[in-house]
């Protein structure tokens, strides 16, 4: 059980929730399964996989940026300060944080894990350069926050964020967003013989690798579990044919 410290709407359907009481905080790219209701209630039944937006190790807090898309996240958004919440995690593999200049590409709610990634990268490799591309359909969120931890921020509203990116670079590239956006990024990268990191999203039930609900096809024809083998993959593993 964790405790809600903060749960604020920051834009239409977008919320920032901070919780305390997680035994482990996790690393960038990992996620928690959050269950918005008590144990003896079963509608909706499953916990929701929500990726880590930020961690404050001093205060012992983990923050999530999430979008209300259905019944579960709607209830999540109705939770108030001091409410209890059931959490499982941190789960998944998380990002490899490389000693290199990096380019981050986020689309919509997919920007969430990139904040913690940029922050940790800056802490580990302060002299490296961080460029971030944020794409939104209608309006930007948290622009200042992302600007504060990156050296360069490029915003794209209503267009294709991947069009703004030069994939022919030595930078390490990390992408998180809607599947079509990640596929587009992978196609661009493949053309210049570059591999990139993508963080996949899929429906999940258990979140720990047991149920095989979130299996995805890989390029060699085998299946991988987004929750346990991922959610971070090389694009060459999951998007190249």
């Amino acid at each position, binding site marked *: 059980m964790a405790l809600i410290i903060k749960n604020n709407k920051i834009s239409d359907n977008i919320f920032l929730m901070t919780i305390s009481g997680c035994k482990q905080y996790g690393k960038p790219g990992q996620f928690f399964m959050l269950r918005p209701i008590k144990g003896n209630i079963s509608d909706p039944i499953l916990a929701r996989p929500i990726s880590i937006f930020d961690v404050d190790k001093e205060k012992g807090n983990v923050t999530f940026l999430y979008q209300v898309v259905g019944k579960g996240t709607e209830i999540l958004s109705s939770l108030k300060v001091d409410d209890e919440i059931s959490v499982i995690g941190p789960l998944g593999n998380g990002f490899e944080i490389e000693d290199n200049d990096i380019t981050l590409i986020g689309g919509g709610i997919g920007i969430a894990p990139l904040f913690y990634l940029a922050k940790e990268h800056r802490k580990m490799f302060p002299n490296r350069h961080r460029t971030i591309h944020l794409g939104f359909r209608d309006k930007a969120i948290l622009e200042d926050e992302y600007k504060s931890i990156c050296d360069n921020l490029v915003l794209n509203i209503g267009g294709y964020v991947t069009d703004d990116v030069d994939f022919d670079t030595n930078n390490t590239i990390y992408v998180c967003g809607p599947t079509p956006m990640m596929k587009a990024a992978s196609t661009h990268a493949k053309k210049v013989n570059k591999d990139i990191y993508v963080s996949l999203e899929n429906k999940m039930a258990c979140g720990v690798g047991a149920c*095989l*609900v979130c299996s995805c096809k890989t390029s060699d024809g085998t299946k991988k579990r987004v929750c346990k083998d991922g959610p971070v993959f090389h694009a060459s593993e999951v998007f190249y044919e």
Partner: protein
Amino acid sequence: MSNINHLETDLMGIMLKNPVIAASGTFGFGSDYANIIDVSRLGGISGKGLTLNGSKGNDGQRVYETPSGILNSIGLENPGVRHFVEHEYEVMRRTGAAVIANLGGHIENDYLEGAKLLNKVDLDILELNISCPNVKNGGMSFGMIPETAAEITRKVKEVSRHKLLVKLSPNAYDIVSVAKACEDAGADGISLVNTFLGMAIDIDKKKAVFNNVYAGLSGPAIMPIALRMVHQVSKAVSIPVVGLGGISNYRDAIAFIMAGATAVQVGTMTFAVPETMINIIDGLEKYCIDNGLENISQIRGII
């Protein structure tokens, strides 16, 4: 407070430390939850459903939430019996829980070859999934009618050296007749229920949510039906019955035991609350103490 006396359960001659078993398809081969809960406390684990040569499972969406339940269409994604024998069996054995292999198939030969391969390892129990579509019978599952259920049960029993637990489908025309036929065919026990055939429609996309159109419903939503079926079947057969279907807490588990179940399996609720089985075991232990029971079996079948 020791579990040994109160919860120890004889299931078809196999001693379980308690009657709480992870249901097939919800617990991998036991290692995935090892970081989350103390897997060694479980009475048993029924592993991910196996097919002879393995399967990549179904394409498209695989889960859909319904009120108090989930529809799933995994399609038996699994690494195959040989891989299980060579790699997963040992992992399961090390958990300390009783090892149950769950075997399915689409033609008779796959069941029989699979069962023979599984003779190479010291399973505690072989659980036979007869809810799979039978290719030879127009896709109707082996478990729909007594004749096909009995035939596959008898033939697997002939080739297997393990205790045989036959897992029934609630979609059977008459589940009591199927249970009796399996008992007559040599089943050592019956587990029920597998998932209910259900459906979901994505009205925005104007198509079925699942590529296969229909999918399997599980979870607390269907518990009242599962409990009724366990009660009916327990009255009709003499072999042990393992009850499952939406069990969420120790009170649900007790209801199944009172309805006649020797042990219970827990599936869907583990996804929601991984501690569910541990809480059930603790709850059953406390129930025995509070009610002065020497063993949980004293309330078995009292309804």
